[in-house]
């Protein structure tokens, strides 16, 4: 089964992971801008990082038949530095028009501080002015519930926001219904210890259905597994779910959401194409 990995930080992964993902049927990845494990010191450091996302990774991925797309932002953790964040936000527009850039993300909250809220709101304002999709990071562990509700308050309080152009990522059992009820797309992240497992993701699919739901591995520089999305496919199949059902989550939903982006430039394999995606079409 072909699949799309909607959230993975390939800049922090070795090339062997592209090989394994390609073998498992991955045809495209979406890579949000993230915290690289240290606090960067300047806007020029972010500019270099955004060049890596938009120039280097697409070439590395293409060697293995994988189409690479990305998102641009300053992440929630580094958003605590408001002055640096504003410098970075000022350079984001230079990158938004590049091929494969899906929108602004992954913005959000980390420890739910006032500074993080300020920078989140400024990113949202930019996305509204530039008509971009938004990918939202919800906090980890004990901060997730409070942070998700704060994020939903912020987005819900902005009348310019169209929920069908926003994906709330890293949802879990206590936040998924909040985001779905508000009309947003959601991502379930299968990641050791701090987030879901393929089984828990499958449980939530069985409870909430497949509409507006994606799954991802969020592979990064920590102990993580890019094979979690294929493992989700295997889990769903072993529970007796049809390939049509599984494909909705791992292929069609990512296409439906990403195809809304101005920078969407992916030609899916013939077996992944379908005629109409609501208000957008896949070539």
């Amino acid at each position: 089964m072909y699949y799309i990995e909607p959230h993975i930080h390939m800049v922090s992964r070795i090339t062997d992971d592209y090989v394994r993902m390609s073998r498992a049927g991955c045809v495209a990845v979406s890579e949000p801008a993230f915290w690289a494990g240290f606090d960067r010191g300047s806007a020029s450091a972010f500019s270099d990082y955004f060049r890596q996302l938009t120039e280097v990774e697409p070439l590395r991925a293409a060697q293995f038949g994988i189409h690479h797309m990305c998102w641009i932002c300053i992440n929630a953790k580094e958003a605590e530095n408001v002055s640096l964040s504003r410098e970075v936000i000022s350079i984001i527009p230079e990158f938004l028009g590049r091929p494969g850039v899906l929108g602004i993300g992954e913005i959000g909250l980390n420890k739910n501080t006032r500074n993080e809220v300020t920078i989140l709101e400024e990113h949202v304002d930019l996305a509204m002015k530039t008509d971009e999709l938004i990918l939202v990071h919800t906090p980890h562990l004990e901060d997730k519930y409070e942070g998700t509700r704060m994020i939903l308050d912020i987005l819900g309080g902005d009348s310019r926001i169209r929920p069908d152009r926003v994906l709330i990522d890293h949802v879990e059992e206590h936040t998924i219904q909040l985001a779905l009820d508000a009309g947003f797309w959601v991502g379930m992240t299968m990641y050791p210890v701090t987030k879901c497992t393929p089984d828990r993701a499958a449980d939530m699919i069985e409870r909430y259905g497949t509409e507006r739901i994606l799954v991802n591995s969020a592979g990064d520089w920590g102990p993580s597994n890019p094979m979690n999305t294929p493992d989700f496919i295997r889990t769903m199949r072993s529970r007796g779910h049809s390939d049509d059902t599984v494909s909705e989550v791992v292929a069609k939903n990512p296409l439906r959401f990403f195809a809304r982006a101005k920078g969407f430039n992916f030609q899916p394999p013939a077996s992944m194409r379908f005629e109409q995606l609501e208000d957008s079409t896949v070539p």
Partner: protein
Amino acid sequence: MVEKMNVSSVLDRYFLEMRQDVLKLASAFDRLRAGGDGESVKRDPRVVMLREAIGLLGKDEADLARRVQLVFSKPYDQNWRDSK
């Protein structure tokens, strides 16, 4: 409509994993006790949360994963804009 497993299928598939997860918890609590100073263990807020969450599992009630998540979550204040 997404298909679901029946009770028998769930147990056939997951019983051994569930048994393993219970043993992992039990052995972790044994490690806590072996660490000594039982009173400080009892008072540690992380242990309090763990016992509350585990207590939920002993109940024959619905929606346990969501409720356990909330045990480990900071509360949400609808007036956060004033307090942050």
